[in-house]
């Protein structure tokens, strides 16, 4: 067959594959449906490599099938095939052609490696975020803005977000597939990377490095909002804490919860910051709040119910995590209900 004819048949196949791939998965999660320039660039590299590789696979499979059909031994065939030593021309061809194919992949690879490693830590226009991974939650600190949040990263659209990544305990890996590939968090040293969020939305993030029993459940969200909303969010985060109206609940919350957590200007950041938790998509990263997410699933509960589930027995939701259960914490059912109701109502306006 004419070589060009082969190409004419393969090219539409490759294009079809690419289309098929891009139709897969959730757009807020899948690396095949990129929502930002970094993920887009990675997806482009994937497409180049998948195309080259499909070409290779098709050639090999074609030869393979042809050979197996053509040269099968017929019954009673006793002839001895010619003992071929090799063929230098052929061997050189299948050394040089792969080299050329690799060059096609290698050049954009190198460009992207350096492109993605750009450092925006000194850029006044970029938002600096320090990500600290903990067993099994994520802390996001904005050193320029004096704000700390957890589990739900909030960023403005259209700006470079420059991350500094560290770990408080074991290795984890920070990954938002539809926005950009991952980077490990190493204890004792920090890594850098940057991402961009052109569109508003909430994207699913994952921990990608085995870190213990609840590694699978160490999800987080990345929420991109308009720059104006972002400014409002920062202001709301910095406002003094809203405490429970009921004095007893307020006291319980202060003594039992704020020993580790923080809201507004109260408490400490030893555990996830709870400011505005009523407006977050999830409790603990994995319990989806049916009254907050846009596409609730049948098994999702409201924020308040999810909070109760969590506070009552965190171990059951995320095995091996560090938060004491209600029993350990000596909380009565009334106190659980009161705290859950208060936190569910704690929303930020932005």
């Amino acid at each position, binding site marked *: 067959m004419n070589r060009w004819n082969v190409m004419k048949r393969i090219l539409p196949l490759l294009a079809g594959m690419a289309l098929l791939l891009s139709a897969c998965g959730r757009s807020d999660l899948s690396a*095949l449906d990129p929502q930002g320039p970094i993920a887009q660039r*990675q997806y482009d590299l994937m497409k180049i490599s998948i195309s080259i590789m499909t070409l290779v696979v098709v050639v090999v499979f074609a030869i393979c099938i042809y050979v197996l059909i053509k*040269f099968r031994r017929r019954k009673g065939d006793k002839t001895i095939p010619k003992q071929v030593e090799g063929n230098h021309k052929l061997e050189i061809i299948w050394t040089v052609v792969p080299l050329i194919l690799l060059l096609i992949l290698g050049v954009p690879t190198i460009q992207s490696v350096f492109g993605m490693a750009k450092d925006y830590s000194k850029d006044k226009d970029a938002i600096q975020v320090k990500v600290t991974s903990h067993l099994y939650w994520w802390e996001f600190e904005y050193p320029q803005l004096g704000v700390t949040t957890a589990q739900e990263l909030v960023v403005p659209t259209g700006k470079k977000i420059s991350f500094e990544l560290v770990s408080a305990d074991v290795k984890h890996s920070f990954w938002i597939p539809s926005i950009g*590939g991952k*980077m490990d968090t190493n204890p004792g040293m920090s890594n850098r990377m940057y991402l961009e969020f052109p569109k508003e939305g909430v994207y699913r993030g994952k921990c990608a490095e*085995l870190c213990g029993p609840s590694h699978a459940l160490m999800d987080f969200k990345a929420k991109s909002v308009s720059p104006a909303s972002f400014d409002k969010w920062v202001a709301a985060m910095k406002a003094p804490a809203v405490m429970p109206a009921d004095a007893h609940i307020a006291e319980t919350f202060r003594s039992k919860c704020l020993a580790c957590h923080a809201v507004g200007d109260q408490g400490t950041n030893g555990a996830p910051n709870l400011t505005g938790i009523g407006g977050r998509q999830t409790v603990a990263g994995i319990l989806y709040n049916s009254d907050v997410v846009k596409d609730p699933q049948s*098994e999702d509960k409201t924020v308040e119910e999810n909070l109760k589930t969590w506070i009552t027995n965190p171990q059951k939701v995320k095995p091996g995590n560090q938060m004491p259960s209600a029993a350990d914490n000596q909380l009565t059912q009334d106190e659980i209900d009161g705290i859950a109701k208060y936190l569910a109502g704690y929303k930020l306006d932005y």
Partner: protein
Amino acid sequence: MDWLTTVDHKKIGILYLLAGFIFFLVGGLEAILIRIQLMKPMNDFVAADTFNELITMHGTTMIFLAAMPMLFALMNAVIPLQIGARDVAFPFLNALGFWTFFFGGLLLNISWFAGQVPDAGWTSYVPLAGPTYNGTHGVDYYVIGLQIAGIGTLLGGINFMATIINMRAPGMSFMRMPMFTWAIFITSVLIVFAFPVLTVGLVALMFDRLFQANFFEVGGGGNTVLWEHVFWVFGHPEVYILILPAFGVISEVVATFSRKRLFGYSSMVFALVLIAFLGFMVWAHHMFTTGLGPVANALFSIGTMLIAVPTGVKIFNWLFTLWGGSIRFTTANLFAIGFIPTFVLGGVTGVMLASAPADYQYHDSYFVVAHFHYVIVGGLILGIFAGLHYWWPKMFGRMLNEGLGKLTFWTFFIGFHLTFFVQHFLGLLGMPRRVWTYLPNQGFDTLNLISSIGAFLMGIGTIVFVLNVIITWAKPRNAAADAWEDGRSLEWTIPSPPPEYNFKQTPLVRGIDAWWKEKTEGNTAMTPAEPLGPIHMPSPSILPFIMSVGLFIAGFGFMYAHHWLAAGGILVTFVCMFFRSVYDDHGFHIDPEEEVQA
């Protein structure tokens, strides 16, 4: 008793096969449990920490206790025969190597009964595997078990290197060696360079864990990335230690069953050497997301991509060995032919992974799980099955049942692709690897179900193989010397199974594919290179067994801080070494008359 004291390479090969296959079944059972857990979202078939123990033990068992020993089984069974030798260079060390592997593996698996199981992944990244975050004895079993088993591997590597260099029959120059022998030679070199690195890492981790050292403890000034480097400097060559022997097997099987000599022999050799060399240079491609910086990532990207070139050369050479041949579809050949496209799929995803910026997406996702199972299962395990079906008559004197063999192939092969092909997509859709469970409605549900069904099919294929072995056992030993009629190398010139001394007279090798050459010239036997005379054989010995038991005991002593027990175990080993040194054992001779009787 005979089996505990044997130093005969053929028997040791069978021991390796038996032990390796049992561990393969253990690792397979662990895999099935993993796939049951992941069959549906938010499943709680096993607990989260049990799951991490399962994946850790599955990976560690499959790589160190199943795949490598089964390869050692093939090497032991075949290499001395292929090069026309009567045994390996150091028969005593060979036995010692088996027993240390066996007791190391046993120690590792006793963790299941001790209730403290390694759970930090087969890579045991610190600090998760360090004393601060892993306070039980779980990882101690990993660290000590692998050290003991590693002694065995290293001894094997040294032994086969020496054997292949020194004990080839007259006339067998390096460029006349069968491809499998070449592959094992290069593999042995890799073992000799890579395993000491692992040992150093394991010793350092052991000191951190048992004696409060600070190699990897950040709090004490240690460095966690150091472990990643040490592990992968060993770990990447390790994957080539696994796959090169499979390349060798495929070369033999494909040539035999297409009745043709291997296409491009010298380029095949050159490709092997190049792959081995590059294999040492690319370890950091496992660390693209660790944060080594763009220069390192760029260099390791390109270095990794280059491996595709010699690998491609091998693939096309196999295809052109088949081209123009007279192809016979035996079970062994089915496995070999199944290997080629499967390994190509695994290889091309390897090139995709090598593009560092794209790997930021793939790394530690199910895409990687799919990739390395395509190379390890689709490459290595298919290769081992091909080799087992091919050399079974030589090892045991009985032909495996072809019908059952083909059933094994088809269930295993289809099950394999069902299990792992979809995992590429799971990874790209955002599923991280090593996850105990996943939330519903993320697009993972159906693909995971398909994957689990495939795993069951592979399990069935394996069971059929076991049945085949049992049924074959009941049959008479009637395999011919040249069991496939188209044998090309020296192992097919002697009876199946071979006598204790392999070759009555060392053969004279007159060209590549020595036996084929004689056959085409109308000869019915090899020309001997020496007169008939008494054959010197090494004596059997129980010492290797006792020495390994000593190390096994010492391992427990260290782990549970009973230092007198540790000292006792080490003492046992040293006393054995002492006896071995002072007692001059000259072995024994088999007389020519006896040979005639035998």
